[in-house]
Every structure is written in structure tokens, then in C-alpha cells.
């Protein structure tokens, strides 16, 4: 039986279920206990679990993240929340130099079952230091998994898998998705990493999108359908590991590709996926791959301008038409 619940509720359920299942799972972050988190993902968990397992921290991101990594090494399964992905710029030593490399440096011995939860993307006028899309920085680092769910169903199943994963996982939510609804089964389930989900099947072109660009691409796809253009929308769900097989199969079928990301184009994940497709499906491509990405700019406070720095439905529609030479 499935019910419709919010993305943030799905995340909450995942945390709750994993904490019930495994006493080594615990949460750390700013305002996550009593207050239930800025986006209410951890709401009411303190009622069920002790303050030792739902820990409110001071504003000392580098060190409480490092403490999470240390606790993971010492046998726990921490889920650390950093309020905004922008603030993860304070913890990259702990993530990139420590968590990602610890197992390797110790000769492949010590697992680091550590989950970093954060959220990115534009909201409504949160300005340049609270609106970034920075998944590319984690994506580049060997040893990290990168997860970016776009629906409540994916959010829950992937977060449960992240918590059970023995390697560090960067789990990135989107502030505009928290209040979106979707079907989520009552029964226990997990989603394996590295399995893309085809959110809509189609034959004329392939759209690859993740996080908040998935619903936007689906909206674009619906409009395109009205014009008789039938696009396939693929959500990789996990950027690392990336489900190349599903992507390449779709590309070989449609021969036309649009990649949509909220992050700026330069050095983004879209470029990497494009480079993989051109290397592995070169002979199938009927048109250059189109990347629809954020404008090369910090995010402005002004709302009209803010709406112009991230891909709009019409940008996606135009890109699809472009690869179809329409």
C-alpha cells in the first residue's frame, strides 16, 4: 500500500526506520533535535530517540562533521546534516581529505559508513550564499557516493540505502522539493545505488536530469507531448555510481540528448555525462548533446533575476527542439 507523503516526510521516515533498525545510527546537525531541522526533516525524532542519537550541535561544521567521520570509523553510522550545501564549503577537508580517503589510506581496511545530508539549489530569494548547486565538487572525488533524489519515493529508498552503505555518501536534497508529494509504500524498501529511473518513457529524445530539474523536465516533456514530441526523461538518482547502461541504452534509442542541471554549466556534472556519452555512443548521436544549465553567475536575491539563472521549462523545451533540429 502506498500513500502520498511529502519528500521531507519520506526522509523523516527513512531516518526513523533506520534508527529503529540499527542502534548505531545517529543524527547530528544544527537545530535538528528540539526544532526538527530548518526544513523539518528530523521533526519529532527526538520524541522517539534519545538526545544522544539526535544531537544538536554548535555552529562548528568542520568539527562536528569530522566527529561524524571519526564516529563512523569507530563503528557508528552517523548521519550529519549541514543546513545548506553552501556551508559544506566549511567541511571539505573532513569530506575530501578524510572521509573519502580514510579507507584507502589505511590499506583498504576501515569502512567509513558516514552519510552527509545537505540541500542545495535556489529557493525564494535566499541569495548567493544559500542557493548554490555544488554536487560537482563531490562528484569529482574518488571514494564518495553522490545521491540526489527527486521524489519522495526515491528520497526514502535512497536514504535508507545510504545509511546502510559502508562508504561515505553525500546525500543532497533540494529545498524546493521538501514540500512536494508523491507515492511512498508503507512497506519497507530500499533503492540500490547506480540504478537510474526512467521517469517517463519516450522515443524522440533523451532528457537526463536530477533533483529539482526532474519535475521541471517532466513538465517540459508534457508540453512537448502536446506538440507530438515524445521524450524520455531519465533520472540517474545517484550521480556516483552513475547508471551508464540505462543512459547509453536510451541514447542509442533516441540518438538525441539533452542534459539538464541547475548548477552552472562550466565544470558541472552535465559536462561529464556529456563527455561519457560522446565517448561511448559517438556513432549514435544525431546532434550535439545540449546542456541546459544554470547561468554562469552567483544566485541573485531579486526574485525575477533568480528565476532567470536556473533552467526554465522553456529552456528545456527549446533544447529538445534544438537537438531534434526543429
Amino acid at each position, binding site marked *: 500500500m502506498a500513500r502520498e507523503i511529502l519528500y521531507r516526510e519520506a526522509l523523516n521516515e527513512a531516518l526513523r526506520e533506520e534508527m529503529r533498525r540499527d542502534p548505531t545510527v545517529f543524527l547530528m546537525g*544544527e*537545530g535538528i533535535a*528540539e*526544532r526538527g531541522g530548518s526544513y523539518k526533516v528530523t521533526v519529532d525524532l527526538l520524541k522517539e530517540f534519545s538526545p544522544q542519537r539526535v544531537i*544538536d550541535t*554548535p*555552529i*562548528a*561544521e*568542520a*568539527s562536528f562533521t569530522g566527529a561524524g567521520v571519526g564516529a563512523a570509523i569507530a563503528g557508528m553510522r552517523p548521519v550529519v546534516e549541514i543546513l545548506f550545501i*553552501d*556551508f559544506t564549503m*566549511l567541511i571539505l577537508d573532513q569530506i575530501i581529505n578524510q572521509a573519502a580517503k580514510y579507507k584507502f589510506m589505511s590499506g583498504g581496511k576501515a569502512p567509513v559508513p558516514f552519510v552527509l545530508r545537505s540541500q542545495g539549489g535556489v*529557493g*525564494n*530569494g*535566499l*541569495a*548567493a*550564499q*544559500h542557493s548554490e548547486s555544488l554536487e560537482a565538487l563531490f562528484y569529482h572525488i574518488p571514494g564518495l557516493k553522490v545521491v540526489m533524489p527527486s521524489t519522495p519515493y526515491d528520497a526514502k529508498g535512497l536514504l535508507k540505502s545510504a545509511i546502510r552503505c559502508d562508504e561515505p555518501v553525500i546525500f543532497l536534497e533540494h529545498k524546493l522539493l521538501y514540500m512536494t508529494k508523491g507515492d511512498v509504500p508503507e512497506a519497507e524498501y530500499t533503492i540500490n545505488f547506480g540504478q537510474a529511473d526512467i521517469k517517463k518513457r519516450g522515443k524522440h529524445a533523451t532528457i537526463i536530469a536530477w533533483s529539482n530539474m526532474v519535475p521541471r523536465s517532466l513538465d517540459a516533456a508534457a508540453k512537448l507531448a502536446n506538440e507530438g514530441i515524445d521524450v524520455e526523461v531519465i533520472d540517474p538518482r545517484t550521480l556516483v555510481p552513475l547508471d551508464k547502461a540505462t543512459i547509453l541504452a536510451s541514447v542509442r534509442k533516441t540518438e538525441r540528448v539533452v542534459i539538464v542541471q541547475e548548477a552552472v554549466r562550466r565544470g558541472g556534472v552535465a559536462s561529464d555525462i556529456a563527455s561519457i556519452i560522446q565517448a561511448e555512443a559517438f556513432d549514435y548521436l544525431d546532434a550535439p548533446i545540449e546542456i541546459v544549465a544554470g*547561468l*554562469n*553567475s*552567483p544566485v*541573485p*536575491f*531579486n*526574485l*525575477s*533575476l533568480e528565476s*532567470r539563472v536556473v533552467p526554465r521549462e522553456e529552456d528545456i523545451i527549446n533544447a529538445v527542439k534544438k537537438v531534434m533540429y526543429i
Partner: protein
Amino acid sequence: MYTKEFLAQLYKKLYTIRVFESRCIQLYRQGLIRGYFHPYLGEEAIAVGACAAIERHDYITSTHRGHGHCIAKGAKVKFMVAELLGKKTGYCKGLGGSMHIADLAVGNLGANAIVGANLPLGVGAALASSMKKDGKVTVVFISDGASNNGVFSESMNLAAIWNLPLITIVENNQYAVSTPITQSTCEANLFKRGEALGITSQQIDGNDVLTVYETVKNFAEHCRRGEGPFLIEAITFRHGGHHVNDPGLYMPKEKLDYYMSIDPIKRGRQYLLEKGGASDNEVKEIEATVEKNMEEAIRFAQSSDELAFDDFLAIVEGY
């Protein structure tokens, strides 16, 4: 000891901040202001006392709760409201918003949405002054929460070994969002952290504009003689939640009542009346001027345009 003019000036600033925040909260509730909005209500004495004690060309760096610092340092409210409304007439053309207002013409190097990040920037401004020997002082405003971030001790230590003309004011309002200071440290006397780094540090009543003024004045003189840095822990309390959408229910009523009873605006008014010998009418006149000015500012902001997309593109050209 204090002239009426001086006390009137202090009061005008105090009252301006109070009116600015109260009116802008209304605009927020009307949906005219978006994003994060952290009112400075209840903490006005710190910004006003500190900025009155330094010169127009001296530097400050500010926080997410920065409207008060901005006004105290000399900003025009109309450009501030315009910024909060995202208009191109705003201090940052509407690109920055509440958490990023900077007013470089009067030395306000800007608010910051990363807690603690304004402190190293302030160290840098003070370092520049020490190298240029321009005689300027830098005042950095942070709050208790920021003092738990690593940049606090790092930066204060740098300022100490470099003898910088820097005064860091920890606005200890006893909360970081909803986390009370007693939960974020075992030693709530934050000025001790400065002492442990060999820095002259002092805890003061942050709700008393004259105490703040005197302390900063004294330290600033030392700074200009090359005897900085200093740390001031100014005890205060917010009059409401962390931001406009936080009712702040976790704040104990008796504490709030106490701090309301030592409201910085009320005390500033009293100083003006008692020490400055101003009449009730004179005070009312100041208040009327401030209120009128604020309404004009709102009209100015509302009638201003937004930045055109092309002008925006020109700014990020080459990024």
C-alpha cells in the same frame, strides 16, 4: 558630560533601527520582502554605541542580523529598503538582499550569510589599515553562535600576533537560532576566549548604548596607537525569534521580560531626557522625523525598478 546633540544623535539611530525593523517586518508579512530576515530588535544599543565611537571612514563587517549595523554606520534607509525589496536602487542593486547589504562609502564592508565569515574579512581590513597606516579601526560584529566556529579563535589569534586595530564585538544574545548558549558551551563567559589568546577582553552590558560607546571609544583609541586588538562581549537578548518566521517560543518569558525592561531604546530615550536635558517634545520630534523618513524610504523603494536582465548580465560578464 554628553551634549544634547550627541545623545539626540544616538537616540535617533536607536529609534531608526527600531522603526526600520518593525516596518520592514510588516513589509515582509505583506509579501513585499522575501528570503531570510533576521531582526536586530533589542540589540540596537550595540551597533549604535559602537558606530558612534568610531569614524565614518572606519570599517565594520556585519552578519546575517545586519540591518542595525548598517544603519548605525551611516546607511540611508531608503537604499536599504530598496535592497530588501530587491530593487536596483538598493545598495547592492537588489542582488544581495538583507544578508549581503554592503555600504562601502561609509566603510560598511557588508553583512554575511555565513556565520563567522565576516570575522576573517574584518581581520583583513584591519591588516590593510595596519599596512597602509591609514589610522582606521575595524569593528567586527558577531554573535555567540559564531564564537564556536573555528574562524573565531583563528582570526582573533591572527589579529593578536599582528597587533591589528581590530575590535571584535560578540553580541551575546544568548542564542544561535533556538540553541541557548548554555547548550553550546560550558563557559558562557565568552570574553575568556579572548583572554586565552592574550587579548584584552571585556564583558559589558550590551543594552546600554553609553557603555558600549565608552568601551569602544577607549579601545579604538588604543587601536589607533597600535595597541589592538580587543574583544568585547556585549550581553543582550533578542526581542523575538531568530528570524521573522520564528515565534521564538523557546525563549523564557521572564528573561524576555527582563531584557524588555532594559530595552536599549527606552534607555537611550531616558539618557536624552535626563542627561541631555531634552524635552518630551524634542524627543517626539526626533521620532516623527525618523518615522517620516522611513515612510519616504518605503515609497522610494516601492517606486523603484528592478535591475533589468541585461544589466544583470553585464555584471556577471566574464564570470
